[in-house]
């Protein structure tokens, strides 16, 4: 179990590289999504392994909030970008 959990954590390392290097914002949000899925998997694993039912609740909250993050951030990011473009158009 512990070995599996450790391996699971190690699979998130590529996501870290992507988070740093992008190149686009969508890629970064995608990495957050992937980290979320891996965290949920790890929490479910730990719930079984340590016989702690609470971790499943944490996983549920993480799943819900992960969905909210990607939806909300996409909508929040859209206007800011459009402004940048418009500003560039004005200045050019």
């Amino acid at each position, binding site marked *: 179990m512990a070995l599996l959990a450790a391996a699971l954590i190690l*699979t998130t390392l590529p996501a870290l590289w992507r988070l740093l290097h992008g190149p686009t914002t969508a890629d970064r949000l995608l990495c957050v999504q992937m980290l979320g*899925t891996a965290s949920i998997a790890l929490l479910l694993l730990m719930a079984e392994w340590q016989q702690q039912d609470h971790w499943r609740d944490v996983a549920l909250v993480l*799943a819900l909030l992960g*969905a909210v993050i990607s939806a909300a951030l996409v909508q929040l990011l859209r206007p800011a970008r459009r402004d940048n473009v418009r500003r560039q158009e004005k200045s050019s």
Partner: protein
Amino acid sequence: MTVALEGLRIVLLAGGLFFFVTGSLGLLRFPDTYTRLHAVTKADNVGLGLLVAGLSLHSLEWQSTALMLLIWLFVMASGATSAQLLARYQREQDRQESASNGNR
């Protein structure tokens, strides 16, 4: 019986891990954002499903299995939807970029 169950469990858990590894490899290696979206939102969800299956074989308690199934279903729905949302966002960005390049 129990040996078979144990074997099945190990196979399922290992399969889940395999799909997680595949997903993160795809995230690292695929050429553009759209393909990377596929890698994460599809492979990881299969991985989580196999993991859930393996873990429920272990506990055999219906409450925890039900909760895990619920989480898995939700993660699948959320993965599919946010893949769409992110792809649309990315397409919008690309279009704006090409539009502003065209203006110059």
